[in-house]
């Protein structure tokens, strides 16, 4: 079953044609990796899925994106609700300059949860899901800015999980982290995939093979090839894919 379907998607920033005729499906409760050289449109693509590109003044799109069969660019679509359902983890860990607790509680609060017991419970659950609880349970009131980069990124994941999303978009979540933190995040992705649909942009080919079931290869704004990760890395159908994954360019 597909959670997200993208049909004939074209994206423009002003005159620049960033994404060209994208057609793809994202299966439910799986990890899909997006690979490709810098500037090929991977990030733009995932930011199209939660309408973060709406923030860019000259953004324009054609085609349709469906979440569970509903067109997310339909004028009736509630963007706030959409972004609650499709959470996002950014490249650079970006916790708010607030306490650890308040970072996780933020999404709950803005969506109207004010009951303290419920907040405490959801914050604990989310931090546990993000494998951060044991490290921070005694200092929930400390500033999140005092955590290490890897901890901050897991906090950002916890913050996203707290909203109980259906899909989590990750835009190179490990690119600013050291190998040990990266391993922790990857373990976490394995754990989360049973409950969430995850789309991860990565520059690290090994990471794609380690965490994902499906992989799409982007080049110059097009999807060159989409397949099971095992297939795409062992037996790519397209010459360009093969050149990229064997490190001949990019």
């Amino acid at each position: 079953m597909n959670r997200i379907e993208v049909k004939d998607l074209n994206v423009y920033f002003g005159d620049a044609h960033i994404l060209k005729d994208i057609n793809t499906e994202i299966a439910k409760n799986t990890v899909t990796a997006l690979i490709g050289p810098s500037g090929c449109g991977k990030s733009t693509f995932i930011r199209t899925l939660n309408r973060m590109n709406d923030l860019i003044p000259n953004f324009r799109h054609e085609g349709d994106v469906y979440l569970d069969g509903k067109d997310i660019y339909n004028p009736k679509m509630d963007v706030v609700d959409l972004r609650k359902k499709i959470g996002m983890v950014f490249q650079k860990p970006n916790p708010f300059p607030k306490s650890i607790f308040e970072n996780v509680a933020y999404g709950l609060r803005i969506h109207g949860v004010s009951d303290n017991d419920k907040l405490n419970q959801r914050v604990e659950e989310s931090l546990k899901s993000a494998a951060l609880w044991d490290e921070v349970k005694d200092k929930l009131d400390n500033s999140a800015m005092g955590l290490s980069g890897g901890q901050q990124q897991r906090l950002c994941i916890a913050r996203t999980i707290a909203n109980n999303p259906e899909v989590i978009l990750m835009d190179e979540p490990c690119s600013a982290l050291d190998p040990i933190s990266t391993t922790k995040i990857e373990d976490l992705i394995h754990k989360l995939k049973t409950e969430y649909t995850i789309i991860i942009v990565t520059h690290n080919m090994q990471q794609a093979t380690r965490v994902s079931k499906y992989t799409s290869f982007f080049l110059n704004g097009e999807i060159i090839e989409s397949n099971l990760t095992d297939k795409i890395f062992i037996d790519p159908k397209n010459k360009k894919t093969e050149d990229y994954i064997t490190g001949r360019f990019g």
Partner: protein
Amino acid sequence: MDKNNLSEFIIEKGLFIMAIFSIIIIFLIISFVLLEGLPAFEDYGFFQFIFGLTWAPNDSQYGVFAMIIGSICVTLLAMLMAVPLSLLCAIFMAEVAPSKVRKILKPVIETLSGIPSVVYGFFGLIVLVPIIRENFGGTGFSMFTASLILAVMVLPTIITLSQDSLRSVPHEYREASLGLGATNWQTIKNIIFPAALPGIITSIILGMGRAIGETLAVIMVAGNVVQIPNSIFDPVRTLTANIAIEMGYATGLHYNALFGTGIVLFIIIIGLLVVANYIQHKYKVDVGGGYL
């Protein structure tokens, strides 16, 4: 020494000399004010000077308390009007306005700060004083009139600095908040405004410094009666006005007392600057500590 190194050397030393020179000038001014003002404290008595209620140079009475209160009241009332207005304006410019609107608004507001204070004062005298006389009674020369003029005068300072501080909040915070499904206003209220708060408080304090130091516009509309005002429509005299009005003919202890007034003003402004610096440094080290 080759040519490049020589010019580096000259520029470096030149800048150093300029910096030292301006510091020396400031130092000289301060010592001059202290030298001329301190005799007032000595001869008249420090507490009598600060807390004395009567200012009557003909009678050799030099109590500046009413004027300290006058300066503080005029400034606070001005801030009461200016702060909400300028913060909303800064939020609008930094977060809401499309870039075209911002490009027009910014120079307009910066121009406000370039208008000479005598023009503000003249406007107050011709336009505001009659309006207040007709609507609120009295002569129209009042603490309220002065505060109104000052409020307009400090707008550009607070707006420009708060706006800079709002815009320097990392874009990542905004994205994170919006990405969690927050609305624009929730993001501004819960994330951006708190993160910019140290800078905003600093801008308010600098605005206060400007208001408390303003002289000419205040003299033109405040009425300048030495008294502790009973209502905001009573005339007041500020510390700055006191110096400017009487300096022309003061001699002897009177002359020293005016410099003493300057010292009091100086201390108040230094106090404000210290608070501003403290807030900025305190929050720069640890952004929030969970209590933003």
